[in-house]
């Protein structure tokens, strides 16, 4: 492996990113770390702090032991390193250090990193460069034994096929006996079926089955929702079993929906990507983190997924409201929203403008079109332009400025405290809102006020 000298890998003269307190707090993996990091965001705990023009921030934080923790952050990643034993990511020391940098000009002076910080920074940046470089002649990229890999894949496809057929039988049995019985049979039946799908190596099917189990307890109208979900699951089964006859893009979507891993394909799209939102959803023992990005030049919206298992928070974290210059490699299928973050250029910068928005009608139509590529899509990312949050008899709506068309706010968002942030920022006036628009309604994730000319754009996070 080639190592660079590590000096200035990210373009010279780039001003080191300085994140706002809100951005740093949004990076915290949970409330406890937010609180703990906040406590450490004051000068008292820190010594030998500093930052430099390459985007590095470092410092020593006094802990309960005799040796202070060594904390260093590469804001271009962002990436974090701390000698503390925490499994949180970023840990409270990294958050505290960034808060100190955000809030206190004096406490973190410009300087050059000490040896212990430089070592990690150089190593990390060298690795990042090596990774971003196209694979060389050593046959990298392909599997070691293509024949064995093909056999493994075939075997797995077979098992999934068995699972899908079994699930089909269960669904038909359910429909023959009637959904009314599902209310009594309770959760156990679905748990067992979900476990069978895990055995069949189809985590996507298992996840959908588990959600079916929760539907009968989901309140009035549950039979309709249960029928819809059963039907979509049946559609997925059938699609998998008949995948040979599907167009390649749809087949790729089906593979992803069933739960087969996909790898990013094709040339990376380099753009200035605006970080729109970042949020975590716990799914069983795994936490899924979603980061939405918008490419200022390509006009593309992309989704970065990362996972944290067994109490660890996902490793990828980007501050909302900044723009990163980077290459993104899309995954196949599903409208190609999902992507992997590739090479980064320069340091993140505050966003200048929100994405251009569409009307409520255009947003819901975009979701409709997305269903053509992926009938299982729950929602589609859109930015709404000039909408006003308005209370309605059964929740909230986002209404266009003319007061004609509205999208109901999705139930998930109605219980979120940050809904009130959206209302407060609007003050009854139109604003730009990014969110996920689907059959349950619009789930707002970020908002921007119209803002006066020259006033900096503020990205208000809503999750």
């Amino acid at each position, binding site marked *: 492996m080639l190592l660079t000298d590590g000096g200035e890998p990210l373009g010279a003269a780039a001003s080191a990113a300085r994140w706002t307190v809100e951005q740093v707090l949004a990076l915290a993996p949970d409330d406890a770390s937010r609180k703990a990091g*906040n406590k450490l965001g004051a000068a008292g705990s820190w010594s030998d702090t500093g930052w430099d023009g390459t985007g590095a921030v470092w410092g020593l934080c006094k802990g309960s032991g005799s040796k202070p923790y060594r904390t260093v952050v590469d804001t271009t990643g962002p990436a974090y390193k701390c000698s503390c034993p925490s499994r949180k990511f970023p840990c409270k020391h990294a958050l505290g250090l960034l808060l100190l940098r955000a809030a206190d000009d004096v406490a973190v002076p410009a300087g050059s990193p000490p040896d212990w910080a430089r070592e990690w920074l150089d190593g990390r940046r060298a690795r990042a460069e090596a990774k971003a470089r196209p694979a060389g002649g050593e046959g990298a990229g392909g599997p070691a034994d293509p024949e064995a890999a093909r056999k493994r894949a075939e075997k797995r496809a077979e098992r999934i096929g068995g699972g899908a057929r079994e699930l089909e039988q269960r669904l038909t049995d359910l429909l023959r006996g009637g959904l009314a019985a599902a209310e009594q049979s309770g959760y156990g039946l679905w748990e067992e079926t979900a476990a069978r799908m895990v055995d069949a190596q189809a985590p996507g099917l298992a996840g959908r089955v588990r959600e079916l189990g929760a539907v009968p307890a989901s309140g009035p109208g549950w039979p309709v929702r249960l029928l819809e979900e059963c039907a979509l699951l049946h559609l997925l089964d059938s699609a998998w079993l008949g995948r040979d006859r599907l167009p390649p893009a749809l087949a790729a979507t089906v593979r992803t929906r069933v739960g087969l891993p996909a790898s990013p394909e094709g040339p990376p799209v380099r753009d200035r990507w605006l970080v729109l939102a970042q949020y975590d959803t716990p799914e069983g023992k795994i936490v899924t983190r979603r980061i939405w990005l918008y490419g200022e030049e390509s006009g593309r919206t992309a989704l970065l997924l990362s996972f944290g298992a067994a109490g660890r928070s996902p490793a990828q974290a980007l501050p909302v409201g900044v723009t990163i210059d980077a290459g993104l490699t899309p995954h196949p299928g599903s409208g190609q929203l999902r992507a992997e973050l590739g090479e980064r250029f320069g340091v993140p910068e505050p966003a200048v403008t929100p994405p251009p928005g569409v009307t409520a009608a255009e947003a819901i139509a975009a979701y409709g079109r997305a269903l053509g590529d992926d009938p299982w899509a729950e929602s589609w990312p859109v930015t709404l332009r000039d909408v006003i949050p308005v209370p309605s008899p059964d929740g909230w709506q986002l209404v266009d400025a003319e007061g004609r068309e509205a999208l109901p706010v999705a139930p998930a968002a109605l219980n979120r405290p940050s809904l009130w942030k959206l209302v407060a920022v609007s003050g009854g006036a139109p604003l730009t809102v990014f969110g996920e628009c*689907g059959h349950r309604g619009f789930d707002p994730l970020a908002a921007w006020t119209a803002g006066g000319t020259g006033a900096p754009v503020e990205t208000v996070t809503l999750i």
Partner: protein
Amino acid sequence: MSRTTTPAATPTAGAATASDALASVPWEELVTSALLGTDRRPPEGASGTGPDGAAAALLDAAALHTVRRRAGLLPAAASPRPAVAPDDPRPPLPEAARGRLAQLLADRAAGSGGRRGAAPDLTELIPQWLATANVHGYRAPDSALPALLDAARARTDLRPQTLEFAGPRGLWLAGLNPEWKFALRGASGSALLPSPDDPEAVRRLWEEGLFAERIALLGAVRAHDAEAARALLATTWKTERAEDRLMFVDSLRTGLSAADEEFLERALADRSRNVRATAAELLSALPGSALARRMADRALSCVSPGLTGDAPFVAVEAPHECDEAMQRDGVVPLPPSGRGERSWWLGQLVEATPLSVWPARFGGRGAAEIVGLPVADGWGEELHAAWCRAAVRQRDAAWARALLGPPSTPPSNGPGTASLAERAKLLAVLPPAERAVWVADFVAAHGLSEAFQLLGVCPVPWAPPLGRAVVDALDIARDAGSYPWSFSGVMGLAERCLDPAEAARLEVLTTTPAEPEDASPGANGYWTEAFQRLVSTLRLRATMDSELSGVPMG
């Protein structure tokens, strides 16, 4: 999305298979079949495909329907939008202060708990931050309003400052969320009150407003024109409920003057005992009032210069009965259990008597001299306690000073009262600067163990001599080998009340000196930590102040 409109389904007809035939079956029928089971009720047009076939055909059709319905969703009809939030012309927070506010609020939201450590307690700094922000007249950031309202909902002591900071948009927002009702109720919000110069609007709100609005209105009118406020009160007095009358009478406490006497005299005949007692208390705080004169006559007949022997003393003859006239003037006849009724009556008489009558009674002696006289027959404690209450009620600095005695005298031997709560009230009567010096001397003489309540009435930030006295006393406590949490109350006060400029001077305390021989184990480390927190909190307060004035430090 049930709340959006579904377009009329126009399925393509004429297909051959069972599934395609089912595609034209209305959705409701598919749901009914699914609910009852295809064995019992196969959907129309799905016959002849076997038992499993009907179910599979139903699933096919339902999938088609589901995707078609979702793909064809249209926007819903718009609900009427709320009024636009009123303009707030105040300037926005400087960038750094904005970040600080986010940090303070995030800390609050995450809840408290855990050891305090060396880091500042951010939640404790919110009140000060808000007060300073309000002095500068900043507008709250819109996105922070929900967190601010939540904070004020949880902590009533934060409400006035928070609501002032949140401004008109905060009230607008609170109007949309029932959880923030308190903001509308508590809004003394001059924005919501009619101008006192608009008698018609004033009268309408007085007659139709909620209780809190009426109290706020009365206060506003009284501040503008006391006579008009009394007239307003008189218009409805007879029909008000007793508890409302009590609050209205109590509201006269602000700006009480001789002009209020007539109204209060009439209230002495009120049906409600609480209203009578409050009226009597207010009248007795007016030294020129007829009630004060009547009380003075009674008290003077009970307390007199001693006539036997050479040394002067105070003779006390407590009242033998509590007649109707006394009761009408607010004397409560029944003592609480454990107290003699004669001393109970005496205490009330002296408390309501203008202090100005005593020098004449005692041969021209001043307050300090009178307080210094011995009191016969064990009445001393009762009499001094009553004088203390009188000094507080009448805000008489000379008597408060005399009753507090010199700060170096141990509280138990003091002239007035040993109760720290009472002494704190007396202190509050003294001018602020004198208060700080008195408490500084008290701390220097007696240490910190009894100083907490007294420190609480000193103006913030603490004057230099007081700050020095407290820090010295903390240092002495460390040297004495005790644990810092014995002084956590004072330490917490010091973090909030010391002048931030003291931080540099205190730095020396954060180094860990050699452990004294008789120290409690590990105490030294904890003291160092406590002093570190003190210094870092002071530094942070200084930073916060400079952020709010928009002047970067350093």
